[in-house]
């Protein structure tokens, strides 16, 4: 086994991840090719496209040496991986949002709160530090509907632009965290394949920094 196996997240981060790998000189991957093939070899390295929540699983269990994944997924995952670099893209925030006309929106925290979210682990950790009686309701999509239908008082959800929240008459109450894409690595691989993993981290970090400078200019 010469090269590294790298898990890439399907979904919104995917195209950006491929672009950054190309900019870093690691691999030129045509995103469309992954529609036909599950894994693509480039040089000695092998790239697989998996669901974002599965990236830390592949990396922790040693199915892949490295992975690219959003910090929001890492918050929710209890997998032990090394987080090596902030790759800068896929910027979004995990926020608590409530209906515009609610007491919460006025800054009044009720004694008990029903929170709809796709991020139950993060929600429990976020509210653990606050003395509130919180009921976390785990949903798998369209959490904005929960306050509209009376299922929950508020939502803890990811927002990039705030447009979806606004369109559903929700306002941000507080930010729970800011997320970007990260490079993660398997514990043993960091030791046994240190040079290769380190080289990938350095190349991606450099490409991410260059992009950030270019974007700012």
């Amino acid at each position, binding site marked *: *086994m010469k090269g590294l196996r790298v898990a890439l997240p399907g979904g919104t981060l995917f195209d950006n991840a491929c672009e950054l790998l190309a900019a870093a000189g690691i691999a030129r991957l045509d995103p469309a090719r992954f529609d036909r093939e599950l894994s693509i070899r480039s040089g000695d390295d092998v790239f697989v496209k998996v669901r974002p929540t599965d990236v830390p*699983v592949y990396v*922790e*269990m*040693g*199915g892949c040496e490295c992975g690219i994944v959003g*910090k929001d997924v890492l918050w929710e995952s*209890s997998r*032990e*991986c*090394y*987080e*090596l*670099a*902030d790759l800068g893209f896929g910027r979004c925030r995990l926020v608590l949002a409530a209906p515009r006309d609610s007491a919460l929106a006025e800054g009044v925290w009720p004694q008990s709160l029903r929170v709809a979210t796709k991020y139950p682990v993060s929600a429990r950790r976020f509210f653990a530090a606050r003395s509130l009686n919180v009921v976390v309701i785990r949903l798998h999509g369209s959490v904005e509907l929960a306050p509209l239908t009376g299922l929950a008082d508020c939502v803890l959800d990811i927002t990039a632009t705030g447009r979806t929240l606004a369109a559903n008459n929700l306002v941000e109450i507080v930010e729970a965290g800011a997320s970007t894409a*990260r490079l993660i690595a*398997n*514990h*043993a*691989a*960091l*030791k*046994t*394949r*240190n040079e290769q993993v*380190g080289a990938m981290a350095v190349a991606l970090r450099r490409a991410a920094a260059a992009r950030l400078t270019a974007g700012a200019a």
Partner: protein
Amino acid sequence: MTGLDALPPGATVRGRADGFNDYLVGPAARRRLLADRFIETFEAWGYGFMVTPLIEPLDTIAAGVGGAQQSALFRFMDSDGALLALVGERTVSVARVVATQLHDGPFPLRLCYAGSVLRNQAPNAGRRRESLQAGCELVGAGGLAADAECIALAAAALERGGVEHIQVDVGHADFIPGLLDSAGLEAAAREEVLAALARRDLVAVEAALEGTDAADAERRLLLAFPTLRGGREILDTAAGGLRGERPHRALQELAQLWDLLDAHAITDRVHLDLGAVRDWDYYTGPTFEVFSVDSGFALGSGGRYDTLLSRFGTPLPATGFVLHVDRCHDSVVRRAGTQTTPVVLHVSWESDAHEEALELARALRHQGVACACDLVAGGDGDVRVTASGARWSDRGQDEQGSVDAAVAALVAGTS
């Protein structure tokens, strides 16, 4: 196989708790053999085998390990209401035994053990919740020679067990905390950096250091933490520009340890790893982890824990390590592929030759050949015993002769 639809709703599937394994004939024997090889090696180095219970009072465990490990224990209540737990590791048990029964020495004490440990992990995570660990503790020896012995012994045991291409990463539990001290960080920033390092989150380490007035040499080392690896030469590189005494002392200890490991002739398998992230509250000196390219997990780990015994009222320096037998087994199987199950000969007999068959079986077993004797007459085994002798086949060739001749041929054939 029954499809899911065919099961009535609420039907009980008599299964096995997730995260626990059955080991069937073959794998179970190989796994046991691997543990035996480890224990044999420990004993060959003068470590006495001992057994500790699977259950300990929660208080005893809590005296030894931190909150994160305690929360991953299977806990339950004794008939008198006392809280008990299934052990998640066995070093604390050995420490308890030393403090209560072996406190008069003679020191150093060399002890080894093997047994199940349990972790109450989330189901369906693909992680083992019960695993077999074999370990050694060297109690009452404070010098680096003791640490070197443990590292060399861990490597020797793994190699004796057939685990190939191992790599030992040696670090020092005081290096990073010492580095944070000498960096002149405020207490809050120091805690933040340590917590981020413990989470193995380099991005957060960087963020925590940003905006602090950490000295340049220390900042450079902290940011490079996963790559602070190599041979003896990295110690000099790392020492450049460091002001504090603590990190320097850790580096000096590692230099001495390296020379001792060289004397043990294992430095070709050793890397020094200054960025090793270990439990800083537990370990007090050199630490190590053993890896193989065949496994995504550490196969073994250990280090010096000079404060643990004092928590049991017996302040004694100690060092030790544990090998994860199941992960080692995975690694060996991955490399060697599926191995054949051990050979068992079948002995059959004609109705008037049961006694002779049992005698032949006894003779075979005496010579170390595993064999099972048929329970009824007339079978078609590897050897068929009659009142006048035996028939067997040797490389496809039918042979016939006395019981003694059969034993000799079968012993030769299976050796």
